[in-house]
């Protein structure tokens, strides 16, 4: 259970705050107008940004001052998810250990993870030799190997076509269910939230709101979100 307790942050002209928010296990989308602070929210949770005030708690343990690698968060960024000069195998290995040689156990784990994301046999490829979809899968594999209880995804599939994106979203949902991971997913497309996230956090007008039911939020969006979404209605039920 992730708790954000009265977080405040000010970066120049940008400011954001929250009341006490609790996020349970499962998948939670993050929506909001551009520049509202969605990525900043993830950054706060992952540890790349420190709040000016307030606390972040994981299972009631205070993690506010922990550095990123000590947080229970694995993050997939918008880009730069893999080191381009290292092979897929090496990228994944680094998620497990920093030594050059891996144990049999670790190698098996990597093989299994690659298989799970559908990239078997692509160990030796460099990221530049993979397609967009394959790169996303490799990034997912990386974060899986980190095996953290929270997965933060910052518009991870923005560059993919609809069919591929849906495939990846479903994969994320499956993995989350399998492992009981808490997934926070920022996306600019509400359909993504509708597809796999029962709850959504709205970030708008300098505030991080409480998680609410995704469908209801999109059927009756508040003004700020409504302007962002436009005239289309999003009242479809999740899969």
């Amino acid at each position, binding site marked *: 259970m992730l708790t954000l307790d009265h977080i405040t942050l000010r970066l120049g002209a940008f400011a954001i705050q929250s009341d006490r928010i609790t996020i349970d296990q499962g998948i939670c989308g993050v929506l909001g107008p551009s520049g509202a602070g969605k990525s900043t929210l993830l950054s706060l949770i992952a540890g790349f940004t420190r709040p000016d005030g307030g606390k972040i708690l994981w299972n009631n343990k205070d993690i506010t001052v922990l550095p990123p*690698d000590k947080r229970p968060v694995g993050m997939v960024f918008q880009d730069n998810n893999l080191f381009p000069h290292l092979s897929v195998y*090496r990228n994944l290995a680094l998620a497990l250990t920093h030594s050059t040689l891996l144990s049999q156990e670790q190698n098996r784990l990597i093989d299994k993870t690659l298989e799970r994301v559908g990239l078997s046999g692509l160990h030796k490829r460099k990221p530049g030799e993979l397609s967009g979809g394959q790169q996303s899968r490799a990034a997912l594999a990386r974060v899986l190997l980190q095996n953290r209880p929270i997965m933060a995804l910052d518009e991870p599939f923005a560059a993919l076509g609809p069919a591929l994106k849906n495939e990846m979203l479903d994969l994320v949902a499956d993995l989350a269910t399998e492992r009981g991971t808490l997934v926070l997913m920022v996306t600019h497309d509400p359909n993504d939230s509708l597809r796999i996230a029962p709850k959504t956090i709205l970030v708008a007008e300098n505030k991080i709101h409480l998680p609410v039911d995704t469908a209801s939020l999109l059927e009756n969006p508040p003004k700020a979100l409504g302007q962002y979404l436009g005239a289309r209605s999003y009242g479809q039920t999740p899969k």
Partner: protein
Amino acid sequence: MAHRVVAMKAVPIIAGGFVVCLVLFPLITVWMWAETGASLGAADWSAIRFTIWQAFLSALLSCVAAIPVARALARQRFIGRSAIIVLLSAPFILPVIVAVMGILAVFGQNGLINSVLSVIGVAPVSIYGLSGILIAHVFFNMPLVTRMILQGWLAIPAERLRLADSLGLKGWARFRVLEWPMMQQILPSAFGVVFVICLSSFAVALTLGGGPRATTLELGIYQAFRFDFDLGKAAVLALLQFGLVGVAALFTVWISSKDPFAQGLDRPIVHVTTGRFIRGIDTCVIVVAIAFLGIPMLTIFVKGLLGIISLPFSIWQAAGRSILIAAGSTLLCLGFALALARRWGEVLGSAGIAVSPLVLGAGLFLMIRPFANPFDWALIVTMILNAMLSLPFVLRILRPQAESIRTDYHRLAATMGLGPWAWVRWIYVPRLRRPIGFAAGLTAALSMGDLGVIVLFGTSDHATLPLKLYQLMGAYRMDQAAAAATVLLGLSLLSFWIFDYWGRRGAHA
């Protein structure tokens, strides 16, 4: 882990502190040793003015001359291109006296150009004077600037080039969108580096300057120290020089903006073929550049080639020693540079050439003497000082890319918990391989050709190759000296090529 983060922050600070101490302590020691303060006479002030003026002009000309050459090399692909790029670095690493002889072989009274002119019936042209100094400085430094600009070209991500190509950007538009931003970052700092190098120029200025009008600060320090042994005056002048270099370094770093380019995926660069007209211009530019740089070096090489067989074994021993020192200096220098590859680190790094090596050497001599015999330390001290002397160039070469790497990957590394050692081993050094190779090559070659402090610390049996060269000349044996110069030139080029090749091989794009 908290202490890992602290370690990553501490390393640059420790390295920086070490560099500063290594440079300032000897300077202060010399200052304290001086009996009286010294005042500067009219001759000194005119020397200062001249020093700044010729350094400014040299830097300007080097940069201006480098732009078309770099562009030609970046645009065109042809056989021998990599060899030429390697050769481009050669003049910078030559020992001064060898290079001056080579330049005179082409431009001097008795040189090629004048021979050709006399055949045509035109009066001989004399380069002795400011023009001579500028030619020599451009000869030394233009290749370095060219390499820096080329590196800038290579650092433009492939995606951006493809975007420009797909937009059909040519000529002026292409320049404005692609080249100019890159040059804005590279040129001011290249200018600064050359300016700083030329500030401490001495032998070149004197020999080619034609007379006492071409006196520089460094000569003043040389005279004060080796001749008059007026430590006070030497310290004052050295301090002045330090101040000048410091200002120039600060200005340079301030002016060079952070890398404006976004990260690419290391996809190989695909070049658009250029039209025939441009190809023609580029070919001319490259040919002229090769002639200007290559003929003097070729002359030196050939002149001594025959004599090599008759060189005594001691020359080869000295060569071995030089190689050893070069290896040590390179390692030291790279170590410092990798730790200091950030903006303030680069300013600090300039301290390396800010203080006259004579003064540094004397200071170190005084500092060591109470504890040990400085002569036993001659090799180590030479290694350290050579590392310091190359540090500014290495930093200039490494910093832009080092900063990009940090910007692009620090978050990924942080989330994966990469500690300092893992970061360096897996990410930092591998992604910096190409500039590291180049920088290592430069340092190794520079160290080979450096007379260095060894002069002060005495040589006895531990002579280095450049010193042997001077000894031969001092014994009237000009032919053998030419042969030694050939060996020196060959070794410098070889050591440079080895490192550079390593860098280019492993690098991507």
